[in-house]
């Protein structure tokens, strides 16, 4: 499959726009799914996933053909999702530490603010519940938890997508897992 994608990439670079269609067909569900997990909203996920393909097309020259195409595509999509999430809360400087809290930053504060009433959470179906809990995770853990558990990617591939050292990815998986455990604690 990778070979076919590589071939199509070359064709697009040679000016054959139609060859891009097969690339979109091949990755559409995976890319839409990861956007949906990140944004928790179908309309936004569709818009951002489409935008990710458009950006991939426009910037195809910059894709290093020795690397995996899916990694590059995921990177574009997750970056766009993070941008979109940040634009929705422009009043916060998100990485700023909240005074007097250890390891808590604005992300976690916002996550806490967005909490639904407990009765409502308890009524949720499990698949909605997990999506909701993941959406409440601080962004830096959320992306990684989504890629690890919802997309089933290997830690090394996640490190490649996010251009992060493997050690950082591992630490964030651990912290994300611990944060989720605490959130789910009421079950």
């Amino acid at each position, binding site marked *: 499959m990778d070979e076919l994608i590589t071939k199509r990439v070359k064709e697009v670079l040679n000016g054959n726009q139609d060859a891009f269609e097969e690339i979109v067909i091949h990755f559409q569900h995976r890319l839409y799914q990861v956007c949906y997990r990140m944004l928790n909203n179908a309309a936004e996920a569709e818009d951002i996933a489409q935008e990710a393909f458009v950006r991939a097309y426009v910037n195809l020259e910059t894709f290093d053909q020795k690397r995996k195409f899916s990694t590059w595509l995921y990177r574009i999509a997750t970056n766009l999702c993070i941008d979109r999430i940040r634009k929705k809360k422009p009043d916060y400087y998100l990485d700023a530490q909240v005074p007097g809290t250890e390891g808590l930053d604005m992300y976690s504060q916002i996550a806490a603010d967005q909490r639904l009433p407990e009765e409502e959470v308890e009524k949720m179906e499990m698949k909605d519940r*997990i999506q909701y809990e993941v959406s409440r995770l601080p962004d830096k853990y959320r992306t990684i938890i989504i890629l690890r558990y919802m997309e089933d990617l290997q830690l090394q591939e996640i490190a490649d997508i996010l251009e992060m050292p493997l050690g950082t990815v591992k630490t964030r998986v651990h912290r994300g897992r611990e944060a989720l455990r605490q959130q789910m604690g009421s079950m």
Partner: protein
Amino acid sequence: MEKCPKHVVHYMHAFLDGEISSEEEKILTKHLESCEDCKALMEELEQTETLFENVATVQAPSGFTNNVMARLPQPIKQKGPKKWLRQHPMMAAAALFLILMSASFFSSFENEQQFSFTKQPNIIVEGETVIVPAGEVVKGDLVVKNGDLRIEGEVDGDVTVIRGSKYMASTAVITGSSEEIDEVFDWLWYKIKSVAKEVIPSSKDDKSNNE
């Protein structure tokens, strides 16, 4: 709790990552047998993981691919001028005539050796390198002459580097076209296009005027 060494929690995560050594696993198992708190923690962490089994896969809505294809800009511009010349022969001839008439063309290529660039508010200049920092969006076209350009952020417009190199970080985005110009012929080509743009309105402008 004094009997719980810090590394036990670390081993729990290593176990869940499938990256625990057999020696570490022995230590972990032994501790869990003797410690109710850690045993409960381990169980909760494992439960958290199994929750993801409930997650249903989602599919892109129908028509997704067609919508993407409709959103794509015109086919990637050919590097060479052949295609453009074929599509706009009259325009090219007119532009070439104007440029050669002006007679300043060759001198302008030879003489413009000075480092110069489009002044955009959010770019950084280090020596003779123009940098679009990560996270910044430059609105409009960017031209760099006799210097290098490094893009880490986004350029919402066309990028042209004349006698210099362009480096793109993986985070880089250029929404318009992107060109590097080194040779006299490329330079001529660049001039043709910019003159043509001034002299003859592009088809896009025609459309918006008619509407």
